[in-house]
Protein backbone atom coordinates (compact mmCIF):
# COMPACT_ATOMS: atom_id res chain seq x y z
CA UNK A 1 0.00 0.00 0.00
CA UNK A 2 1.28 3.43 -0.88
CA UNK A 3 0.47 6.37 1.28
CA UNK A 4 1.29 9.93 0.55
CA UNK A 5 -0.20 13.33 0.59
CA UNK A 6 0.10 15.86 -2.12
CA UNK A 7 -1.90 18.70 -0.75
CA UNK A 8 -0.47 19.04 2.68
CA UNK A 9 2.46 19.14 4.96
CA UNK A 10 2.05 19.18 8.71
CA UNK A 11 4.02 22.30 9.67
CA UNK A 12 1.66 25.21 10.14
CA UNK A 13 3.97 28.23 10.43
CA UNK A 14 2.52 31.41 9.03
CA UNK A 15 4.57 32.42 6.01
CA UNK A 16 4.54 36.14 6.41
CA UNK A 17 5.14 37.27 9.95
CA UNK A 18 3.35 40.56 9.94
CA UNK A 19 5.25 43.62 11.04
CA UNK A 20 3.58 46.73 12.38
CA UNK A 21 2.96 49.19 9.57
CA UNK A 22 4.15 52.70 10.33
CA UNK A 23 5.50 55.81 8.71
CA UNK A 24 9.11 54.94 9.28
CA UNK A 25 11.48 53.40 6.81
CA UNK A 26 14.93 53.79 5.38
CA UNK A 27 16.64 55.97 2.83
CA UNK A 28 18.49 54.43 -0.10
CA UNK A 29 20.28 56.89 -2.43
CA UNK A 30 19.70 55.87 -6.03
CA UNK A 31 23.43 55.60 -6.67
CA UNK A 32 23.52 52.85 -4.04
CA UNK A 33 20.91 50.73 -5.81
CA UNK A 34 23.49 48.10 -6.60
CA UNK A 35 24.15 47.60 -2.90
CA UNK A 36 20.53 46.61 -2.57
CA UNK A 37 20.89 44.29 -5.56
CA UNK A 38 23.87 42.59 -3.95
CA UNK A 39 21.89 42.03 -0.78
CA UNK A 40 18.91 40.69 -2.69
CA UNK A 41 21.06 38.47 -4.84
CA UNK A 42 22.33 36.78 -1.71
CA UNK A 43 18.76 35.71 -0.99
CA UNK A 44 18.17 34.27 -4.45
CA UNK A 45 17.74 34.85 -8.16
CA UNK A 46 16.48 38.39 -8.77
CA UNK A 47 13.53 38.65 -11.13
CA UNK A 48 12.43 42.12 -12.17
CA UNK A 49 10.30 43.84 -14.81
CA UNK A 50 12.38 44.59 -17.90
CA UNK A 51 11.22 46.49 -20.94
CA UNK A 52 11.63 43.93 -23.67
CA UNK A 53 10.99 46.05 -26.80
CA UNK A 54 7.26 45.28 -26.95
CA UNK A 55 6.28 44.28 -23.47
CA UNK A 56 7.46 44.67 -19.92
CA UNK A 57 8.17 41.19 -18.62
CA UNK A 58 9.43 39.69 -15.39
CA UNK A 59 12.84 38.20 -16.07
CA UNK A 60 16.10 37.42 -14.26
CA UNK A 61 18.35 40.49 -14.09
CA UNK A 62 22.04 40.90 -13.34
CA UNK A 63 21.73 44.41 -11.98
CA UNK A 64 18.95 46.86 -11.32
CA UNK A 65 20.12 49.14 -14.15
CA UNK A 66 17.80 47.92 -16.87
CA UNK A 67 14.80 47.39 -14.61
CA UNK A 68 11.68 49.23 -15.73
CA UNK A 69 10.65 51.50 -12.87
CA UNK A 70 7.70 52.93 -14.81
CA UNK A 71 6.07 49.96 -16.53
CA UNK A 72 4.17 47.05 -15.11
CA UNK A 73 4.78 43.56 -16.35
CA UNK A 74 2.27 42.33 -18.92
CA UNK A 75 2.10 38.89 -17.38
CA UNK A 76 1.52 38.23 -13.70
CA UNK A 77 3.97 36.65 -11.32
CA UNK A 78 1.60 33.89 -10.26
CA UNK A 79 3.70 31.35 -12.14
CA UNK A 80 6.36 31.70 -9.44
CA UNK A 81 3.98 30.18 -6.88
CA UNK A 82 1.85 28.05 -9.17
CA UNK A 83 3.56 27.06 -12.43
CA UNK A 84 1.24 26.59 -15.44
CA UNK A 85 1.82 22.88 -15.06
CA UNK A 86 2.79 21.40 -11.71
CA UNK A 87 3.40 17.71 -11.14
CA UNK A 88 1.61 16.45 -8.04
CA UNK A 89 2.40 12.75 -8.09
CA UNK A 90 4.36 10.36 -10.23
CA UNK A 91 3.32 6.79 -10.78
CA UNK A 92 5.01 3.74 -12.09
CA UNK A 93 2.87 0.63 -12.25
CA UNK A 94 1.40 0.24 -8.80
CA UNK A 95 3.92 2.51 -7.18
CA UNK A 96 2.65 6.00 -6.64
CA UNK A 97 4.86 8.62 -5.07
CA UNK A 98 4.54 12.24 -4.25
CA UNK A 99 6.45 14.68 -6.41
CA UNK A 100 8.15 17.64 -4.78
CA UNK A 101 8.83 20.69 -6.91
CA UNK A 102 12.37 21.87 -7.45
CA UNK A 103 12.61 25.10 -5.56
CA UNK A 104 14.78 28.04 -6.55
CA UNK A 105 14.94 30.86 -4.08
CA UNK A 106 13.80 34.00 -5.86
CA UNK A 107 13.44 37.70 -5.27
CA UNK A 108 10.55 39.22 -7.14
CA UNK A 109 11.59 42.85 -7.51
CA UNK A 110 9.41 45.75 -8.56
CA UNK A 111 6.01 44.23 -7.96
CA UNK A 112 3.20 46.74 -7.80
CA UNK A 113 0.66 46.83 -4.97
CA UNK A 114 -1.84 44.94 -7.12
CA UNK A 115 0.56 42.04 -7.60
CA UNK A 116 1.63 42.02 -3.97
CA UNK A 117 -1.97 41.90 -2.83
CA UNK A 118 -2.59 39.10 -5.30
CA UNK A 119 -0.06 37.00 -3.39
CA UNK A 120 -1.99 37.73 -0.20
CA UNK A 121 -5.22 36.66 -1.91
CA UNK A 122 -3.69 33.43 -3.18
CA UNK A 123 -2.24 32.75 0.28
CA UNK A 124 -5.75 32.93 1.70
CA UNK A 125 -7.01 30.31 -0.72
CA UNK A 126 -4.08 27.92 -0.56
CA UNK A 127 -2.60 28.40 2.90
CA UNK A 128 -5.14 29.88 5.28
CA UNK A 129 -7.48 26.91 5.12
CA UNK A 130 -6.89 23.20 5.48
CA UNK A 131 -5.42 21.41 3.70
CA UNK A 132 -2.59 23.75 2.84
CA UNK A 133 -1.27 23.10 -0.60
CA UNK A 134 2.16 21.65 -0.24
CA UNK A 135 3.79 22.79 -3.47
CA UNK A 136 2.31 26.27 -3.22
CA UNK A 137 3.67 26.61 0.30
CA UNK A 138 7.12 25.57 -0.80
CA UNK A 139 7.18 27.99 -3.71
CA UNK A 140 5.75 30.77 -1.60
CA UNK A 141 8.28 30.35 1.19
CA UNK A 142 11.13 30.58 -1.28
CA UNK A 143 10.08 34.05 -2.46
CA UNK A 144 11.07 37.48 -1.27
CA UNK A 145 8.64 40.12 -2.48
CA UNK A 146 10.05 43.58 -3.10
CA UNK A 147 7.41 46.10 -4.06
CA UNK A 148 7.54 49.31 -5.99
CA UNK A 149 4.98 51.95 -5.05
CA UNK A 150 2.94 53.53 -7.85
CA UNK A 151 2.94 57.31 -7.45
CA UNK A 152 0.70 57.57 -10.46
CA UNK A 153 -1.30 54.91 -12.27
CA UNK A 154 0.64 52.87 -14.79
CA UNK A 155 -1.94 53.30 -17.53
CA UNK A 156 -5.64 53.83 -18.11
CA UNK A 157 -6.62 50.22 -17.40
CA UNK A 158 -5.75 49.77 -13.75
CA UNK A 159 -8.20 50.68 -11.04
CA UNK A 160 -6.45 49.64 -7.83
CA UNK A 161 -7.46 52.80 -5.96
CA UNK A 162 -10.99 51.36 -5.83
CA UNK A 163 -9.86 48.03 -4.39
CA UNK A 164 -8.78 48.79 -0.80
CA UNK A 165 -5.31 47.28 -1.15
CA UNK A 166 -3.16 46.55 1.89
CA UNK A 167 0.57 46.77 2.53
CA UNK A 168 1.56 43.18 1.74
CA UNK A 169 5.28 42.94 1.05
CA UNK A 170 8.63 42.04 2.48
CA UNK A 171 10.18 45.30 1.30
CA UNK A 172 8.74 48.19 -0.66
CA UNK A 173 10.47 50.99 -2.56
CA UNK A 174 9.02 54.48 -2.83
CA UNK A 175 10.61 56.72 -5.47
CA UNK A 176 11.47 60.08 -3.84
CA UNK A 177 13.45 61.69 -6.68
CA UNK A 178 17.11 61.14 -5.90
CA UNK A 179 16.56 58.42 -3.33
CA UNK A 180 14.25 55.51 -2.54
CA UNK A 181 12.34 55.36 0.70
CA UNK A 182 12.22 51.70 1.70
CA UNK A 183 9.58 50.28 4.02
CA UNK A 184 9.91 46.93 5.70
CA UNK A 185 6.89 44.60 5.78
CA UNK A 186 8.27 41.39 7.26
CA UNK A 187 11.09 39.90 9.26
CA UNK A 188 12.40 38.39 6.05
CA UNK A 189 12.70 41.88 4.58
CA UNK A 190 14.18 43.30 7.75
CA UNK A 191 16.90 40.68 7.62
CA UNK A 192 17.96 41.84 4.14
CA UNK A 193 17.97 45.52 4.98
CA UNK A 194 19.84 45.13 8.28
CA UNK A 195 23.08 44.46 6.45
CA UNK A 196 22.86 47.65 4.37
CA UNK A 197 22.94 49.97 7.40
CA UNK A 198 20.71 52.65 5.88
CA UNK A 199 19.69 56.00 7.30
CA UNK A 200 16.17 56.05 8.68
CA UNK A 201 13.52 58.10 6.95
CA UNK A 202 9.85 58.94 7.30
CA UNK A 203 7.10 58.86 4.74
CA UNK A 204 3.34 58.60 4.72
CA UNK A 205 2.67 57.24 1.24
CA UNK A 206 -0.12 58.63 -0.87
CA UNK A 207 -2.25 56.23 -2.82
CA UNK A 208 -2.28 56.84 -6.57
CA UNK A 209 -5.46 58.16 -8.12
CA UNK A 210 -6.39 55.84 -10.95
CA UNK A 211 -7.91 57.25 -14.11
CA UNK A 212 -10.65 54.68 -13.97
CA UNK A 213 -12.55 53.36 -11.01
CA UNK A 214 -14.89 50.65 -9.90
CA UNK A 215 -17.63 52.36 -7.94
CA UNK A 216 -18.41 49.42 -5.70
CA UNK A 217 -17.56 45.78 -5.13
CA UNK A 218 -21.01 45.15 -3.69
CA UNK A 219 -22.71 43.72 -6.76
CA UNK A 220 -25.01 41.15 -5.18
CA UNK A 221 -28.12 42.89 -6.53
CA UNK A 222 -26.82 42.82 -10.10
CA UNK A 223 -26.75 39.04 -10.43
CA UNK A 224 -30.25 38.69 -11.78
CA UNK A 225 -29.88 41.62 -14.19
CA UNK A 226 -28.75 39.63 -17.19
CA UNK A 227 -29.49 42.50 -19.55
CA UNK A 228 -26.56 44.55 -18.21
CA UNK A 229 -24.08 41.65 -18.39
CA UNK A 230 -25.19 40.97 -21.95
CA UNK A 231 -23.20 44.01 -23.05
CA UNK A 232 -20.02 42.24 -22.05
CA UNK A 233 -21.03 38.73 -22.96
CA UNK A 234 -21.90 39.70 -26.54
CA UNK A 235 -18.36 40.91 -27.16
CA UNK A 236 -16.58 38.21 -25.17
CA UNK A 237 -14.72 35.56 -27.17
CA UNK A 238 -14.33 33.28 -24.12
CA UNK A 239 -10.67 32.94 -25.00
CA UNK A 240 -9.57 32.85 -21.37
CA UNK A 241 -6.96 35.62 -21.74
CA UNK A 242 -8.39 37.46 -18.74
CA UNK A 243 -8.05 34.45 -16.49
CA UNK A 244 -4.53 33.59 -17.59
CA UNK A 245 -3.41 37.20 -17.09
CA UNK A 246 -5.21 37.64 -13.78
CA UNK A 247 -2.84 37.42 -10.81
CA UNK A 248 -5.46 35.73 -8.63
CA UNK A 249 -7.09 33.36 -11.14
CA UNK A 250 -5.66 30.05 -10.04
CA UNK A 251 -8.45 27.64 -10.85
CA UNK A 252 -6.78 24.50 -12.04
CA UNK A 253 -7.41 21.23 -13.75
CA UNK A 254 -5.94 17.93 -12.61
CA UNK A 255 -4.91 15.65 -15.42
CA UNK A 256 -3.00 12.41 -15.74
CA UNK A 257 -0.31 12.18 -18.39
CA UNK A 258 1.22 8.82 -19.04
CA UNK A 259 3.27 6.88 -21.54
CA UNK A 260 1.82 4.49 -24.09
CA UNK A 261 1.85 1.58 -21.67
CA UNK A 262 -0.60 3.52 -19.53
CA UNK A 263 1.33 2.57 -16.41
CA UNK A 264 4.04 5.23 -16.00
CA UNK A 265 3.33 8.89 -15.81
CA UNK A 266 2.38 11.78 -13.64
CA UNK A 267 -0.63 13.61 -12.32
CA UNK A 268 -0.42 17.35 -12.91
CA UNK A 269 -2.28 20.42 -11.83
CA UNK A 270 -2.50 22.85 -14.72
CA UNK A 271 -4.09 26.28 -15.10
CA UNK A 272 -7.67 26.18 -16.26
CA UNK A 273 -10.23 28.84 -16.99
CA UNK A 274 -13.83 29.22 -15.93
CA UNK A 275 -14.43 30.98 -19.24
CA UNK A 276 -14.19 27.68 -21.11
CA UNK A 277 -17.40 25.78 -21.63
CA UNK A 278 -15.96 22.42 -20.63
CA UNK A 279 -14.86 23.76 -17.25
CA UNK A 280 -18.10 22.56 -15.66
CA UNK A 281 -18.85 19.63 -17.97
CA UNK A 282 -19.69 16.37 -16.21
CA UNK A 283 -19.66 12.87 -17.60
CA UNK A 284 -22.91 12.43 -19.46
CA UNK A 285 -22.49 15.78 -21.18
CA UNK A 286 -24.25 18.25 -18.89
CA UNK A 287 -22.64 21.71 -18.62
CA UNK A 288 -23.48 23.42 -15.35
CA UNK A 289 -22.43 26.79 -16.76
CA UNK A 290 -23.17 26.07 -20.38
CA UNK A 291 -24.60 29.51 -21.11
CA UNK A 292 -22.05 32.16 -22.05
CA UNK A 293 -23.62 34.75 -19.81
CA UNK A 294 -23.30 32.47 -16.78
CA UNK A 295 -19.57 32.06 -17.42
CA UNK A 296 -19.08 35.77 -18.03
CA UNK A 297 -20.84 36.61 -14.77
CA UNK A 298 -19.15 33.85 -12.80
CA UNK A 299 -15.65 35.26 -13.20
CA UNK A 300 -16.68 38.72 -12.07
CA UNK A 301 -18.84 37.52 -9.19
CA UNK A 302 -16.11 35.17 -7.99
CA UNK A 303 -13.66 38.08 -7.95
CA UNK A 304 -15.88 40.60 -6.23
CA UNK A 305 -18.50 38.72 -4.24
CA UNK A 306 -17.91 35.00 -3.67
CA UNK A 307 -14.32 35.31 -2.46
CA UNK A 308 -15.27 38.21 -0.22
CA UNK A 309 -18.05 36.16 1.39
CA UNK A 310 -15.61 33.40 2.22
CA UNK A 311 -12.36 35.20 3.01
CA UNK A 312 -13.39 38.76 3.82
CA UNK A 313 -11.63 40.55 1.00
CA UNK A 314 -12.12 41.10 -2.68
CA UNK A 315 -10.20 38.73 -4.93
CA UNK A 316 -9.72 41.42 -7.57
CA UNK A 317 -6.76 43.69 -6.90
CA UNK A 318 -7.50 46.15 -9.69
CA UNK A 319 -4.39 45.48 -11.76
CA UNK A 320 -6.42 45.87 -14.94
CA UNK A 321 -4.66 43.08 -16.81
CA UNK A 322 -7.95 41.43 -17.76
CA UNK A 323 -8.89 44.59 -19.61
CA UNK A 324 -5.42 45.49 -20.91
CA UNK A 325 -4.94 41.99 -22.31
CA UNK A 326 -8.49 41.43 -23.53
CA UNK A 327 -8.61 41.18 -27.32
CA UNK A 328 -12.02 42.83 -27.25
CA UNK A 329 -11.06 45.32 -24.50
CA UNK A 330 -14.18 44.52 -22.52
CA UNK A 331 -14.19 47.12 -19.81
CA UNK A 332 -16.26 45.25 -17.25
CA UNK A 333 -16.05 47.79 -14.39
CA UNK A 334 -18.11 50.11 -16.60
CA UNK A 335 -20.94 47.57 -16.64
CA UNK A 336 -21.06 47.82 -12.85
CA UNK A 337 -20.46 51.56 -12.69
CA UNK A 338 -23.36 52.24 -15.06
CA UNK A 339 -25.73 50.54 -12.63
CA UNK A 340 -24.40 52.09 -9.44
Amino acid at each position, binding site marked *: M*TLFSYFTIPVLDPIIKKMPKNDSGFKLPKKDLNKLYTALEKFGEVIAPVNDSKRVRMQPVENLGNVSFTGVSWFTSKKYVFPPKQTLVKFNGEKVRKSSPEITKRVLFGLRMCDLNAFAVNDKLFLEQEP*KMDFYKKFRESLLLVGLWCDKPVDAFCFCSSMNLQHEYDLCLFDRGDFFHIKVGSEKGEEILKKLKLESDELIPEKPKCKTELKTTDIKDLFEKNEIWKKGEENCLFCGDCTSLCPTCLCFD*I*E*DNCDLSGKCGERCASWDSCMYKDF*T*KVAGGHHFRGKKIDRFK*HRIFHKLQYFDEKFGRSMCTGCGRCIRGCPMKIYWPKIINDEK
Partner: protein
Amino acid sequence: MMKNKMFDKTKKMAEDEITLLPIESIRKQTTDEYLLRFKSKINHDPGQFFMCGIPGIGESAISICSYASDYFELSIRAVGNVTKALCALKKGDKVALRGPYGHGYEMEKFKAKDLVVIGGGCGVAPVRGILEFVSKNRPDYGDVEIFFGFNEDEDILFEVDYSEWEKNDMKVGLALNAEGFSCTRAQKGFVTNILGDLQANKNKVAFLCGPPIMIESTVKMLLEKGFQKNQIYVSEERHMKCGVGRCGHCMMKGKYCCTDGPVFRYDKIN
Protein backbone atom coordinates in the same frame (compact mmCIF):
# COMPACT_ATOMS: atom_id res chain seq x y z
CA MET B 1 -2.83 -4.98 5.68
CA MET B 2 -5.43 -2.34 6.44
CA LYS B 3 -4.92 -2.64 10.17
CA ASN B 4 -3.65 0.87 10.78
CA LYS B 5 -5.59 2.63 8.12
CA MET B 6 -8.97 4.24 8.51
CA PHE B 7 -10.95 6.53 6.28
CA ASP B 8 -12.21 8.99 8.82
CA LYS B 9 -14.50 11.96 8.34
CA THR B 10 -13.28 13.55 11.56
CA LYS B 11 -9.72 13.36 10.39
CA LYS B 12 -8.39 16.78 9.45
CA MET B 13 -8.20 17.21 5.72
CA ALA B 14 -4.53 17.92 6.35
CA GLU B 15 -4.15 14.16 6.50
CA ASP B 16 -5.40 14.01 2.95
CA GLU B 17 -3.74 11.19 1.11
CA ILE B 18 -4.13 8.66 -1.67
CA THR B 19 -4.58 5.04 -0.74
CA LEU B 20 -4.43 2.19 -3.19
CA LEU B 21 -7.11 -0.23 -2.11
CA PRO B 22 -7.99 -3.57 -3.71
CA ILE B 23 -11.56 -4.20 -4.81
CA GLU B 24 -13.12 -6.82 -2.54
CA SER B 25 -16.04 -7.53 -4.82
CA ILE B 26 -17.57 -6.11 -7.95
CA ARG B 27 -21.18 -6.71 -8.95
CA LYS B 28 -22.91 -5.71 -12.15
CA GLN B 29 -26.18 -4.00 -11.26
CA THR B 30 -27.55 -2.78 -14.57
CA THR B 31 -26.26 -2.62 -18.13
CA ASP B 32 -23.75 0.09 -17.23
CA GLU B 33 -23.72 0.30 -13.44
CA TYR B 34 -21.41 -1.62 -11.15
CA LEU B 35 -21.21 -1.89 -7.38
CA LEU B 36 -17.67 -1.96 -6.04
CA ARG B 37 -17.03 -3.00 -2.47
CA PHE B 38 -13.87 -2.17 -0.54
CA LYS B 39 -12.87 -3.58 2.79
CA SER B 40 -11.61 -0.85 5.06
CA LYS B 41 -12.38 0.71 8.39
CA ILE B 42 -14.36 3.82 7.69
CA ASN B 43 -16.17 6.54 9.57
CA HIS B 44 -18.31 8.71 7.32
CA ASP B 45 -21.67 10.40 6.86
CA PRO B 46 -24.06 9.17 4.20
CA GLY B 47 -23.69 11.43 1.16
CA GLN B 48 -19.93 11.95 1.46
CA PHE B 49 -17.79 10.97 -1.48
CA PHE B 50 -14.43 9.59 -2.50
CA MET B 51 -12.13 10.88 -5.21
CA CYS B 52 -11.68 7.62 -6.89
CA GLY B 53 -9.30 7.01 -9.73
CA ILE B 54 -6.82 5.01 -11.66
CA PRO B 55 -3.32 6.47 -12.06
CA GLY B 56 -2.85 7.31 -15.73
CA ILE B 57 -6.53 7.72 -16.46
CA GLY B 58 -7.83 10.19 -13.93
CA GLU B 59 -10.06 10.73 -10.96
CA SER B 60 -13.77 10.94 -10.49
CA ALA B 61 -15.94 11.90 -7.52
CA ILE B 62 -18.03 8.91 -6.46
CA SER B 63 -20.39 9.04 -3.51
CA ILE B 64 -20.45 6.32 -0.90
CA CYS B 65 -23.65 4.32 -1.18
CA SER B 66 -23.36 2.18 1.92
CA TYR B 67 -23.20 2.67 5.66
CA ALA B 68 -20.99 0.32 7.64
CA SER B 69 -17.90 0.57 9.78
CA ASP B 70 -15.70 -2.04 8.13
CA TYR B 71 -16.47 -1.74 4.43
CA PHE B 72 -17.84 0.73 1.92
CA GLU B 73 -19.50 0.45 -1.47
CA LEU B 74 -19.36 2.72 -4.49
CA SER B 75 -21.98 2.53 -7.21
CA ILE B 76 -20.37 3.58 -10.46
CA ARG B 77 -22.00 4.22 -13.81
CA ALA B 78 -19.67 3.65 -16.75
CA VAL B 79 -20.22 6.91 -18.55
CA GLY B 80 -16.89 8.76 -18.74
CA ASN B 81 -13.25 7.80 -19.26
CA VAL B 82 -12.50 7.17 -15.61
CA THR B 83 -15.74 5.45 -14.71
CA LYS B 84 -15.52 3.15 -17.75
CA ALA B 85 -12.05 2.13 -16.65
CA LEU B 86 -13.20 1.64 -13.06
CA CYS B 87 -16.06 -0.58 -14.14
CA ALA B 88 -13.70 -2.70 -16.24
CA LEU B 89 -11.64 -3.59 -13.16
CA LYS B 90 -11.75 -7.01 -11.54
CA LYS B 91 -11.75 -8.27 -7.99
CA GLY B 92 -8.37 -7.57 -6.42
CA ASP B 93 -7.44 -4.71 -8.77
CA LYS B 94 -6.38 -1.60 -6.93
CA VAL B 95 -8.17 1.71 -7.01
CA ALA B 96 -6.55 4.99 -5.92
CA LEU B 97 -8.82 6.59 -3.34
CA ARG B 98 -8.84 9.90 -1.50
CA GLY B 99 -11.49 10.83 1.01
CA PRO B 100 -14.09 10.75 2.39
CA TYR B 101 -14.73 14.35 1.36
CA GLY B 102 -17.51 16.84 1.66
CA HIS B 103 -20.47 17.42 3.91
CA GLY B 104 -22.89 14.53 3.87
CA TYR B 105 -26.25 14.05 5.54
CA GLU B 106 -25.63 14.63 9.24
CA MET B 107 -28.06 11.99 10.41
CA GLU B 108 -27.79 12.91 14.10
CA LYS B 109 -29.61 16.14 13.31
CA PHE B 110 -32.63 14.31 11.94
CA LYS B 111 -33.34 12.06 14.91
CA ALA B 112 -37.08 11.56 15.55
CA LYS B 113 -37.93 13.15 12.20
CA ASP B 114 -40.00 11.57 9.43
CA LEU B 115 -37.82 11.07 6.39
CA VAL B 116 -38.74 11.41 2.73
CA VAL B 117 -36.05 9.99 0.46
CA ILE B 118 -36.28 10.76 -3.25
CA GLY B 119 -33.76 9.52 -5.82
CA GLY B 120 -33.59 9.46 -9.59
CA GLY B 121 -31.37 7.24 -11.73
CA CYS B 122 -27.87 6.82 -10.33
CA GLY B 123 -28.83 9.55 -7.84
CA VAL B 124 -30.26 6.81 -5.63
CA ALA B 125 -26.70 5.82 -4.69
CA PRO B 126 -25.93 8.63 -2.21
CA VAL B 127 -29.35 8.34 -0.54
CA ARG B 128 -28.97 4.58 -0.13
CA GLY B 129 -26.43 5.46 2.56
CA ILE B 130 -29.20 7.22 4.49
CA LEU B 131 -31.41 4.14 4.27
CA GLU B 132 -28.66 1.82 5.45
CA PHE B 133 -27.98 4.19 8.33
CA VAL B 134 -31.67 4.32 9.27
CA SER B 135 -31.96 0.52 9.02
CA LYS B 136 -29.21 0.23 11.62
CA ASN B 137 -30.78 2.88 13.87
CA ARG B 138 -34.45 2.37 13.08
CA PRO B 139 -35.95 3.33 16.49
CA ASP B 140 -34.33 6.78 16.27
CA TYR B 141 -36.34 7.83 13.25
CA GLY B 142 -40.02 8.23 12.41
CA ASP B 143 -41.80 7.24 9.21
CA VAL B 144 -39.61 6.69 6.18
CA GLU B 145 -41.01 7.12 2.67
CA ILE B 146 -38.83 6.23 -0.28
CA PHE B 147 -39.49 7.32 -3.88
CA PHE B 148 -37.14 6.14 -6.60
CA GLY B 149 -37.42 6.79 -10.30
CA PHE B 150 -35.68 4.97 -13.14
CA ASN B 151 -36.10 4.66 -16.85
CA GLU B 152 -36.83 0.99 -17.40
CA ASP B 153 -36.62 -2.45 -15.74
CA GLU B 154 -32.94 -2.87 -16.47
CA ASP B 155 -32.04 0.42 -14.80
CA ILE B 156 -33.39 -0.37 -11.33
CA LEU B 157 -30.66 -0.09 -8.74
CA PHE B 158 -30.40 -1.86 -5.37
CA GLU B 159 -33.59 -3.86 -6.05
CA VAL B 160 -32.44 -6.54 -3.61
CA ASP B 161 -32.51 -4.00 -0.79
CA TYR B 162 -36.14 -2.93 -1.24
CA SER B 163 -37.73 -5.86 0.57
CA GLU B 164 -35.16 -5.44 3.36
CA TRP B 165 -36.17 -1.81 3.76
CA GLU B 166 -39.87 -2.69 3.71
CA LYS B 167 -39.25 -5.23 6.47
CA ASN B 168 -37.76 -2.35 8.41
CA ASP B 169 -41.03 -0.45 8.13
CA MET B 170 -40.06 1.86 5.29
CA LYS B 171 -42.40 2.53 2.37
CA VAL B 172 -40.85 2.06 -1.05
CA GLY B 173 -42.35 3.68 -4.16
CA LEU B 174 -40.95 3.11 -7.61
CA ALA B 175 -41.55 4.92 -10.89
CA LEU B 176 -40.44 3.70 -14.29
CA ASN B 177 -40.69 5.94 -17.28
CA ALA B 178 -40.41 3.49 -20.18
CA GLU B 179 -43.35 1.75 -21.81
CA GLY B 180 -44.13 -1.89 -21.01
CA PHE B 181 -42.06 -2.65 -17.93
CA SER B 182 -42.51 -5.87 -16.01
CA CYS B 183 -41.58 -4.75 -12.48
CA THR B 184 -44.71 -5.25 -10.41
CA ARG B 185 -44.05 -2.72 -7.70
CA ALA B 186 -43.46 0.12 -10.17
CA GLN B 187 -45.83 2.77 -11.44
CA LYS B 188 -45.56 4.48 -14.81
CA GLY B 189 -44.00 7.92 -14.96
CA PHE B 190 -41.30 10.09 -13.43
CA VAL B 191 -40.57 10.18 -9.73
CA THR B 192 -42.72 13.30 -9.47
CA ASN B 193 -45.71 11.27 -10.68
CA ILE B 194 -45.65 9.05 -7.60
CA LEU B 195 -45.42 11.86 -5.05
CA GLY B 196 -49.20 12.41 -5.17
CA ASP B 197 -49.95 10.99 -1.74
CA LEU B 198 -47.00 12.61 -0.04
CA GLN B 199 -48.14 15.00 2.67
CA ALA B 200 -46.06 17.80 4.11
CA ASN B 201 -45.72 18.33 7.80
CA LYS B 202 -43.31 20.13 10.06
CA ASN B 203 -41.62 16.99 11.27
CA LYS B 204 -40.62 15.81 7.80
CA VAL B 205 -37.33 16.30 6.01
CA ALA B 206 -36.85 15.44 2.37
CA PHE B 207 -33.57 14.16 0.90
CA LEU B 208 -33.11 14.49 -2.84
CA CYS B 209 -30.55 13.30 -5.30
CA GLY B 210 -30.78 12.99 -9.05
CA PRO B 211 -30.22 14.72 -12.37
CA PRO B 212 -30.62 18.55 -12.35
CA ILE B 213 -33.95 18.46 -14.17
CA MET B 214 -35.38 16.00 -11.65
CA ILE B 215 -34.18 18.07 -8.68
CA GLU B 216 -35.74 21.17 -10.17
CA SER B 217 -39.17 19.64 -10.77
CA THR B 218 -39.22 17.69 -7.50
CA VAL B 219 -38.28 20.68 -5.36
CA LYS B 220 -40.97 22.71 -7.09
CA MET B 221 -43.50 20.02 -6.27
CA LEU B 222 -42.40 19.70 -2.64
CA LEU B 223 -42.65 23.45 -2.15
CA GLU B 224 -46.15 23.40 -3.63
CA LYS B 225 -47.07 20.66 -1.18
CA GLY B 226 -46.07 22.92 1.68
CA PHE B 227 -42.52 21.80 2.48
CA GLN B 228 -40.29 24.64 3.62
CA LYS B 229 -36.97 25.20 1.86
CA ASN B 230 -35.14 24.35 5.07
CA GLN B 231 -36.84 20.92 5.17
CA ILE B 232 -35.29 19.93 1.85
CA TYR B 233 -31.75 18.58 1.51
CA VAL B 234 -30.28 18.24 -1.96
CA SER B 235 -27.20 16.29 -2.93
CA GLU B 236 -25.65 18.22 -5.81
CA GLU B 237 -23.52 16.93 -8.62
CA ARG B 238 -20.68 18.95 -10.10
CA HIS B 239 -17.45 18.42 -11.98
CA MET B 240 -14.87 17.96 -9.20
CA LYS B 241 -11.14 17.84 -9.64
CA CYS B 242 -9.34 18.51 -6.38
CA GLY B 243 -12.04 17.60 -3.87
CA VAL B 244 -10.68 20.05 -1.31
CA GLY B 245 -12.18 23.36 -2.38
CA ARG B 246 -9.42 24.84 -4.49
CA CYS B 247 -9.67 24.05 -8.17
CA GLY B 248 -12.88 25.97 -8.76
CA HIS B 249 -14.54 23.47 -11.06
CA CYS B 250 -17.39 22.60 -8.72
CA MET B 251 -18.10 26.16 -7.66
CA MET B 252 -21.77 27.01 -7.55
CA LYS B 253 -22.46 30.67 -6.79
CA GLY B 254 -19.64 31.01 -4.30
CA LYS B 255 -20.13 27.63 -2.64
CA TYR B 256 -17.74 24.80 -3.31
CA CYS B 257 -19.75 21.67 -3.98
CA CYS B 258 -16.87 19.51 -2.75
CA THR B 259 -16.31 21.14 0.65
CA ASP B 260 -19.52 23.07 1.41
CA GLY B 261 -21.58 20.28 -0.15
CA PRO B 262 -22.35 18.01 -1.91
CA VAL B 263 -25.33 17.93 0.45
CA PHE B 264 -26.91 21.35 0.80
CA ARG B 265 -29.97 22.48 2.67
CA TYR B 266 -32.06 23.91 -0.14
CA ASP B 267 -32.48 27.37 1.41
CA LYS B 268 -28.69 27.77 1.52
CA ILE B 269 -28.31 27.51 -2.23
CA ASN B 270 -31.51 29.11 -3.47
